[in-house]
Each structure stands twice: as structure tokens, then as C-alpha cells.
């Protein structure tokens, strides 16, 4: 029997973008509201998992040609480097700093080095989750 997954495929195409948007929203909102790097990364990973469930691995690899091991490595590296950044300014390792500045067209915003740290966390989470899922499913 051929599985008819037309509905799943069509819905996925649309919904993946919604999930991805949600992931990015969660990532940035983490500073002052629920969200953050870990959750953002996980939501992003779940969007990819949905893609993997719907389509096969080849299609997935064709459309998202990343090596997720490297994504995870870059994430971990960013986490380490943000820590080292503070050392360059003579502060203890992993000191985070923040400032409120006026960005043109956007207005007063607070920017913080935590965002980079969280970016590293998010990338590491996405990379590791997808690496694990891909390597298990490719083992068939």
C-alpha cells in the first residue's frame, strides 16, 4: 500500500516556516520574557525533525546542506569565545556586559553579549540534536 502523505507534506511546507519564525522569536525574546537560546534551539531542531519525518533524508540533505556536527562545534566555540572576550578586557572569564543604545529606525534597544552566548547555546543544541537523529536514522 502506498502511503498517502499529501496532507502532511503540504502542511509541513507551510508550518515549518511558522515554527522557524517562532524559534527566532523565542530566541530573541529570551532576554526579558520566556524563551532563550536553549528553547529557541530546540524549537528550531523540532522544525527540522518535522522536515525529516515528512521528507526523506536525501531531500533534506539537498535542501539544507549543512554538516550539523560543524554547527554544534561552532556553537560550542562561540560559547567559549564569548567567555574569552571578557578576558581580553581584563574581566573574569564569562563576564557578560550590556548596554542600551539607540539603533536607527528601531529605537532604544538593549544589546548584550549574552545574546552571543545564547546564540552559541542554540547552535550547539540544534547541531547535537540533528546530528544524533541523522546518525541514528542513517544507520538503517
Amino acid at each position: 500500500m502506498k502511503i498517502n502523505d499529501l496532507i502532511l507534506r503540504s502542511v509541513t511546507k507551510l508550518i515549518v516556516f511558522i515554527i522557524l519564525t517562532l524559534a527566532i522569536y523565542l530566541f530573541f525574546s529570551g532576554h526579558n520574557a520566556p524563551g532563550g537560546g536553549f528553547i529557541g534551539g530546540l524549537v528550531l531542531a523540532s522544525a527540522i525533525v518535522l522536515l525529516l519525518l515528512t521528507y526523506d533524508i536525501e531531500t533534506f540533505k539537498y535542501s539544507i546542506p549543512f554538516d550539523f556536527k560543524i554547527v554544534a562545534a561552532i556553537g560550542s566555540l562561540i560559547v567559549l569565545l564569548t567567555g574569552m572576550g571578557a578576558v581580553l578586557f581584563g574581566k573574569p572569564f564569562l563576564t557578560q556586559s550590556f548596554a542600551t543604545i539607540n539603533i536607527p529606525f528601531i529605537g532604544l534597544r538593549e544589546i548584550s553579549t549574552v545574546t552571543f552566548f545564547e546564540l552559541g547555546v542554540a547552535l550547539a543544541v540544534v547541531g547535537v540534536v540533528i546530528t544524533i537523529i541523522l546518525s541514528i536514522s542513517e544507520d538503517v
Partner: protein
Amino acid sequence: MLTLNMAIFLPFLASLLIPFIYRRHFKIHIGWFVLIVPVILFITLITYLPQIKQGDSFTETLNWIPTFNINLTSYIDGLSLIFGLLITGIGALVVFYSIFYLDFSENLGHFYTYLLLFMGSMLGVVFSDHMMILYAFWELTSISSFLLIAFWYQRKGSRYGAKKSLLITVFGGLGMLIGFLMLYQITGTFSIRETFELIIPLKEHILFTPALILILLGAFTKSAQFPFHIWLPDAMEAPTPVSAYLHSATMVKAGIYIVARFTPIFGGDAVWFYAVSITGLITLFWGAFSAIRETDLKALLAYSTISQLGLVMSLFGVSSLSLHPTITINEVLYTQAAFAALFHLVNHSTFKGALFMVVGILDFKIGTRDIRRLGGLMLFMPISFSIALIGSFSMAGLPPFNGFLSKEMFFQAMLSVNEFDFFSLNTIGVLFPIIAWIASVFTFIYSMIIVFKTFLGKPKEKKLSQAKEASFGMLLAPSILAIFIFLIFIFPNVLADNILKPAVFNIYPNLENNYFEPIKAWHGFNTELFMTMGVVVIGTVIFAFYRRWNIVYKLFPKFLSFDALYNNSLIFFDRLAKNTTSKYMTGYLRHYFQYVFITFTLLVGFTLFKLNAFSFSLTGDEPIGIFEWILAITIIIAGISMIITSSRLTAIVINGYIGFTIALFFVLFRAPDLALTQVVIETVTTALFLLALYFLPRWEEKRAPVRERRQNFIIAASVGLVFTLVALSVKSGRLFTSISSFFEDSDEKAGAANIVNTILGDFRAFDTMLEVIVLFIAGIGVFTLIKANKKRGAHNLEDK
């Protein structure tokens, strides 16, 4: 000018650079680039010489972890300067020599990376004042030595030797670490210089002797002292430049450095004196005695190194007597021993370095270093012969070479031992010069073996007659050393005044008398001279009748040697570990879960019971709402149905249901962060479960035996019980004050309103960072576990 900290890190920086600039098809030998490093460092260290000679010392501190008072304090005084000059001076010669020894077909990138790594860490050892930093560099030298011995990792012998040296030296290093920690317990400082002063009233402390023994353990293993000497002969599998550099001139002297450095702390103590001098003497004798048996020239040199290290060690043992309270420090008698030790240390580096390089030349040119296959090379390789002659005669303690001077001083020091009235030395002290003399006879014999069996006599094989002298470049480094051997004999006091004496004052900080007898080659017909003459006469006789008596070596059965002990204990521990592991690693996931759960219940349950921590009260609780009731009841139903279902898919879906319901609980209790995380994690985990489902074998309807089911029931029930009890106790009782007030002002402190994320990303960022790393390692672990099998059958490089 280079600062001292920079000097330590320059080799490290250079070794970092090498992988980037090294290419296999490089036109210029990478060694020329490497050579710059020791040359610069040597010149830098020379510039310190005039001030060090005045008795100055230099300190430079770089704050590393100021909170724990761990700072990179570099400290240079006369003692560390000697070692620094040896490391960089011999280092430069060895690098130069290696340029001709190792050609382009070798993996030069690896070689020089390791070599520079070693150079940096060795400089770190001698220039560090902080014991923990010293320890870190100390272990780094072990690791770089391991890498260098295993440079030709295709050979079984190299891997064996590398592992042996690492196991033994790191074992001793760990002992030394504990010794340092004990010293810290006694004095409260990790600084070696501060310990000098603080230790004086604290010598009766209960940890004093254990610390002493443990630090000596580190020194003895590193300096290949009996019975830890067994790793050094096996380390000779390394390329010859490495043997000349690490395993004769520098690394093996790190232990001697430690003994010299800690003499002001431990000196005058009976245990210290006996341990250092007796071990040194036994090593001196045993090394010399064993060297004669060897037919491989490098193994012979290895044993001779062991023996010479023992000599220096025993001198430091004797020199520690002058710190005994009854001796006034300004008596020359025993301080002269430390002087002799340092003198011989330098001399040994010159003649042993030269000899190693000559043996390397033989190996390189002829392809063997077995004395049974060599002979008659004097005519074909005259320069190598001359260098070997100078080196060996110096080692044997003959004039006109530097070894003669330090050997005479050694005899003098040993003769002085029984003038000491304590430690019952006026009776057994007589043994010291006797053992020293016998060992010197053996030293003389093996020195003669090196020269006569290799270069004199008839060529034993045809190809020896076609041997050609090595190239100029290869001969240059050993020739320089040979010239030094001679120069030091003629002008010993230049070396003594400029380099050795400042170091002696560092060993005895309270020494005021700056009078040392100037070294003289001729000092009349005294006992020392007669001892040397006796060595030559008796040694020649024994050497002539070597074949008659070498049967002695067969008296020691192989299975009683320390090598056998090492091998057997390795096999024993291997087997023990394997047997223990195979007992509980059954390969069944359910067994592993049982271990985890049983341990958990027992530990937590016991703690709960023991501390009387269980408390349960309903006061102050909110009434349970209707939603909560519904959710709780559905979870219970789901839990029960998960047990009785006969399909894995159903079980996974039900498990997912429970997870999502818990997320709903979080929503009810107004914890949006937790709810969000729970939902996403549950989604991803369910997907993973489904994936894993594919690989599981078919569900079998067979039910487990009653006994096992009963057992599982008990485990499951007790886990549930303990968890419930813990949860109830956490809610009801407060053991600790809340820390949440610390985070309340997160907005001012970190500019973020979300406290949870501020804790994760800022206040406790270190935890998060490590968690990310752990996650990354886990991901790579899963990947390699699954993918590693796929690449089996890769080209096998190792021989058996």
C-alpha cells in the same frame, strides 16, 4: 628583550605555529625555523648571567586565577639558570643535529611540534615558583616525552616504551602532586620560596615526612632512579636526537632539579638524606653494572645515564647533610658536594650528549648500533671516533677531560660522609666511598666498551669497511660538545664562578661563606687520586677478562627483574579490570537501569532516613483545583495502561502524553519557561523514541519469569516511593535559606528581566558553558559510536 614568562611560552607559540607552516614538500628543512627558538632563548638567558652572578634573582608574575592565588610566577635564580641554559643550549645543538638526522620523509611537523612542546614545558618546570604550575609543566614533559618516544609509532617497541615511560613517570608525578598538597597543608603556601622560610618551625608536622617521600617519588621516577629506572632503556626507541635531549640531558634531570630545589626545605632530615643518597648510590651501581651487559649501544648509554643520574643524586643526598642543625653551614665539607653535583650535571650533559650523537651517526650511517656487529671503525670514521673517545674517557673520569674533575670531587664528597656524627654515619658511612668506587670501576669498563668494541679491532662485517664519515653538519653538534668537554677541563673555574656558585647559594639560602676551593686538576697524591688510579687498573683487568666473568649476568633470572614485575602487574590489572567489567556489563539496558535505580534508591533513601529529613505537612497549601485533579488522574491512568499495553508504539505515545500533561501542570502553576521547554523536549524525545523503535527486535509476547517480575516491581515501587518522599519533603521543610533574593535585581545587574535566562547566561554562565560542551561531546559520541563501524578496515599501520 624577552620577559621571562614570554621565554617559557615562546616554544609553545612556535609549536602551535608549526602545523600551519609545515608542508610535506617543503624545500627548506623545518628544523631551521625551529632552531631559532632555542638560540633566542639561550641568548636571552645569557643576558641574565651577570646579575645572577651577583646573587640576584628575578621574579615575574602574571595573574592567572587571582581568586585562588594561582599566578604564573616565573622565577630565575642561579639554580634554574643552569637548567635553563642546558635546556636551551643542548636544545639548540640537538635541533641542529636533528636537521641532518631526520630527512624529509619523516613526519617532521609532528617531531618538532612535540620537541618544542617539551622545550617549553621543561623551561616551565625550572622557572616556576608555584608548585601547582610546576606540576602542570612537569606532567606536560611526561606527555611530550611519551609522544616523542612513540614518534615511530608503527614499531611495537616504540609504543611499549612510550607507554611504560608515561605510566611510570605520571605515577610518580601524581605522588609528587599529593606531596605538594601536603606541603600546602603544612605551610599554607604553594610558593616554593615562601616555603623555605615557613617550613623551619614546622618540621615536626605529621605530614612532613609523607610529603618528603611523595615528592621524592616524583623525582625518582622522572630521573629513572632505582627501581623506577626500567623505563629509560625502553625509551631508547625514540629517535636519537630525542634520546640525547630528553633522556640524557634535560628531562631525566628534572628529578634532580626537584631534589636540588627542595633541599633547603627537606635538607638535614635523616629520611631525606638516606632516601636520596642510598637510592642514588644503588642506582649508580646498578646502572653501571647493567650497562656492561648491553650490546645495543643506545641501551648501554641509557643504563650509563641511569648510573650517572644516580651519582648526581647521591651527591645531593650528601650535600643535604650541611643543613643539619649541628653543622655550621659555612663549613665547606658538604656544601662542596652540591657544588660537585651541579658540576657533574653539566659535565654529564656534555659528554653524554656527544656520545648519543655519535651513536646516532653510527646508526644513521651503518644501520646498526649493536656492538656485536661493529668494530674497526676508527679508520673509516676518524672524527666520530675522536668524539666518542673524548666522551667516553670523560665519562670514565680520566684526565684531561671534565669528567675527571667532577669524579674526583665525587670521591671527595663520598669520603667525607663518615666524618658526620649523626644518623649513625660514622659506622656505615664507610660503605659510601666503597660503593662509589666499585660503581666507578664498572663505569670505566662500559666506557671502554663503547670505544674499543665499536672503533677498534677488526671490522666484523663487510659493509663496515665501506663506512664513510658523516657529513659536516651532523658532526658539528657533537664536536662542539667535545670541545666543551676539553675546555671545561682546562678552565673549570670559569664555569664554576659564573654559573655553578650562584646556584649553590640558591640551594643554601643561608650560606654566607663564599669561599669554595677553586677546581684544580692536580691536587697532589691524595686518596681521591689513588681511587681513580685503582679504577683504571682494576677496570682494565676486568675489561680484559670480560668473557670469563660475564656469566654473572645469567645468575639473575629474567622473571625476577623489575621489568617482569612491571609487565606482569600490567597484565594483572588488565585482566582484573576486564573480569570486573564483564561481570556487570551484560549488554542489557534493563540491567543498567536496575543498577542506576537501585543505587539511587539506596543512596537517597538512606540519606533521607539518616538525616531525618522527611517532613510532611499540608499547612499553607493551596486547595487542589479541578483541573489539577483531572490531569493527575489521567496521568495515573496513562501510567497504568503503559504497563499493560502490548505494543511499543502505544507505550511511546502514552509516555509522550504524560510528558505533555506535565507541561500542562507547569502552565497551571504559571511557569511558562518550564512549560515551553517541556513541550519542545517532549516533541523531540518522542521523535527520537520512534526512530529507536525501528531498531528494536520484535516485541515478544513471552513474559518474564515471576521472580524477575517481582524483583522489577520492588525496584519500580521503591523508586516511586523515594521520589515521592523527596518531593514532599522538599515542599514541606526548608533545610537551607532561599537564594532567590540574590537574583532579584537581575535587571540592574545584567540588564535582563528574565531571571531564569539571566541565571543561565550570566550569573551561572560557567555551568551553562560546560553543559554545552557536555552536550557537544555526547553528540559526537553518538555519531562516532554509530558511524565508526562503517570505516573499519582502514590501513593498519602498526606492526606486531
